[in-house]
């Protein structure tokens, strides 16, 4: 056991470092990841230690970034690319959907695509437009991609290691407003599969399924609910696609109620999908419809309104109340 206390940002940095040390085919690039260490410093110090042939600054063009990652993957590399903010992944959307996600299927395995696309995502940092988005649902609708979101330093470390080790493309969402959350991380290999749903608190009243930056909010809601004598079962989904639905269904079969929490707009979202699937699989157990506490179906609002837009402890508890009123 090698336990150290790390921020989520530093856990990611450590994961990159460890992966680069282990395998010299791991290369890192994107905008400002070199000398600057990325705008969030996730790649801090790596260029100094590994050199410009392992980690380099790309020209400012996201389709070029993902496209060259694909070519490097064909050549045997394992590129980890950074998209600077959630709102800037869209210039690469075509390259991701038309090529990255489909090449293994198209070539029936002749090409493997061990590419990781790291994306700091979500709101809550008071930023200007395009810097607070939650685009994960788009990627969940694309077959051939793995889509994951970490929520705490330990998962951040292990999930990034697992993503880099994975032979399929992984869109790796990092909860940017949790970068400075600190926790103990055991960086020794565990052999565990981290792309699974993980139950964080046991409960009988209602199940809460969430991921990424909303996890601490969900946990706080569980605590507040406990004070009121209600026990919430909180599940961190971690992998959004493919989604490990088993633990959620199993939980709902016990609690009879589910609230899905996500910052993304709700229409055609991963929250809707979870609601639809859980209803299919646990129809007779549900005492109430699956409710979604999510962003509104609006563009992300100006920052001064984001507290209202983002799922809050109170909105979660209100949804729990609503499920109980059925």
């Amino acid at each position, binding site marked *: 056991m090698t336990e150290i206390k790390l921020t989520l940002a530093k856990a990611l940095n450590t994961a990159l470092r460890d992966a680069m040390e282990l395998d010299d085919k791991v290369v890192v690039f994107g905008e400002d990841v*070199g000398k600057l*260490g990325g705008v969030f410093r996730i790649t801090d110090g790596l260029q100094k230690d590994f050199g*410009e042939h392992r980690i*380099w600054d790309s020209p*400012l063009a996201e389709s070029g970034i993902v496209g060259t990652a694909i070519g490097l993957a064909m050549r045997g590399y394992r590129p980890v690319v950074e998209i600077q903010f959630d709102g800037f992944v869209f210039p690469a959307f075509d390259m991701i959907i038309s090529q990255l996600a489909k090449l293994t299927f198209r070539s029936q395995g002749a090409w493997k695509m061990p590419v990781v696309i790291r994306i700091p995502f979500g709101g809550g940092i008071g930023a200007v437009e395009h810097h607070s988005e939650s685009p994960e649902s788009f990627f969940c609708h694309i077959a051939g991609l793995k889509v994951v979101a970490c929520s705490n330093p330990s998962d951040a470390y292990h999930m990034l290691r697992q993503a880099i080790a994975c032979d399929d493309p992984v869109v790796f969402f990092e909860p940017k407003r949790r970068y400075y959350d600190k926790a103990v991380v055991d960086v020794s290999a565990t052999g565990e599969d981290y792309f699974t749903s993980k139950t964080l608190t046991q409960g009988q009243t209602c199940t809460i399924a969430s991921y990424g930056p909303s996890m601490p909010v969900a946990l706080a809601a569980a605590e507040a609910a406990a004070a009121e004598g209600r026990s919430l079962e909180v599940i961190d989904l971690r992998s959004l696609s493919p989604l490990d639905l088993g633990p959620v269904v199993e939980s709902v079969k016990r609690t009879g109620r589910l609230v899905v929490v996500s910052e993304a707009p709700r229409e055609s979202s991963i929250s809707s999908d979870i609601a639809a699937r859980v209803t299919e699989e646990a129809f007779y157990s549900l005492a109430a419809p699956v409710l979604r506490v999510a962003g509104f179906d609006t563009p992300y609002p100006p920052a001064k*309104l*984001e507290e209202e837009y983002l799922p809050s402890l109170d909105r979660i508890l209100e949804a729990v109340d609503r499920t109980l009123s059925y």
Partner: protein
Amino acid sequence: MNSDSQSTEPVMTGSEDSAGKVADGDALSPGHPQTAGAAAARSAAGTTGSNRPAPEIMRGLRATASAPDQISILSPEGELTAHPDYPLDVTPELVRGLYRDMVLVRRFDREGNALQRQGQLGLWVPLLGQEAAQIGSGRAMRPRDMAFPSYREHGVAWTRGVDPVDILGMFRGIDHGSWNPAEKRFGQYTIVIGNQAPIAVGYAMGQRLDGAIGDDENAEASIVYFGDGATSEGDIHEGMVFGAAFSAPVVFFCQNNQWAISAPLETQTRVPLYRRANAYGFPGLRVDGNDVLAVLAVTKWALDECRTGNGPVMIEAFTYRMDAHTTSDDPTRYRLADETESWRLLDPIERVKAYLARNGLADAAFFDQVQVEADELAARFRAHCVELEPPTSERMFSRVYTDPSAQLAAQQAEHEEYQAGFADTEAVSR
């Protein structure tokens, strides 16, 4: 093209290259393995004999503002040399006006930084050092011309009659820009790099379709602003392709401030950016971006070209980002103070002041008066900022569509009900 190196013709088909410069892959992709034997291999392949010109390399380009082919009128020392191709009626009023513009703009820009430091703004994007590029090009526009900015163009906004206080909203997180872009003929800030180029071209195609070009005084043109880093994005390319295809009356105005956050120009290109225009068959020229008179003259010429149907034109304003990328950035991590210092000598305002003073075109009273105005503007800017009220939740749902959708109205109603209920609960305590 004539090979006189003094010529500053817009480059249509590229310019000659001196034989001495040799491509050096190392300079471009440091750390990537090089072939020691490259030259030898080429020679073995029997191709060295031919005098193929090597591409020009960017190395060292940043350290100097006196790049070849650069158009200038007012030297860093404040000496004026008229340019034969880009005539400008340099009246004292004109120069004093430009001076005032630049001082005022710089002043509120500095105030923006201060407000961010004091927690009044979430972010500020400083324009320090780029005043001449922005004021010169902005003042070249006619009232009916249309400008599409990126996100650093507070100086251009100023020339369009946008009240600086209207820029504050987006940086304070209360809106996405408070001016009316259609009325001011100044688009909203565009944060996703490059998007504004095809949009500006479309607008300019509309100007052409409307017949609003020609020698008529109502003739119009458009100008679109972007940075050196932006030139790598596909959208800038597509904008230029469409601009050329439709002879759109649009000026592509690149403020090459040498940096894209931490990436120096060499990260994006091997050759000067104004050469890009060649590839599309329209004129590209480089102007000293710290020389407000040259920028004004060249942009006027370019807008006229476009307005009379000969668009597009590309201008590269060679300038420097004196401050951080934004208030969130720490440039000491990636660039040397030396470089910034050497550019300080090329300050866009100082040279105008020197010109005015030396030639007796403005006295101390004038300079003092401008300073007073600047301080007043800054005070108003600050006062407005701290008074800005956060929006109500209605703003979140407003104008997602021009006519409200039932689906969204329901979401809004539900949210408002929830908030009301929550207010009740608050009262009795949860």
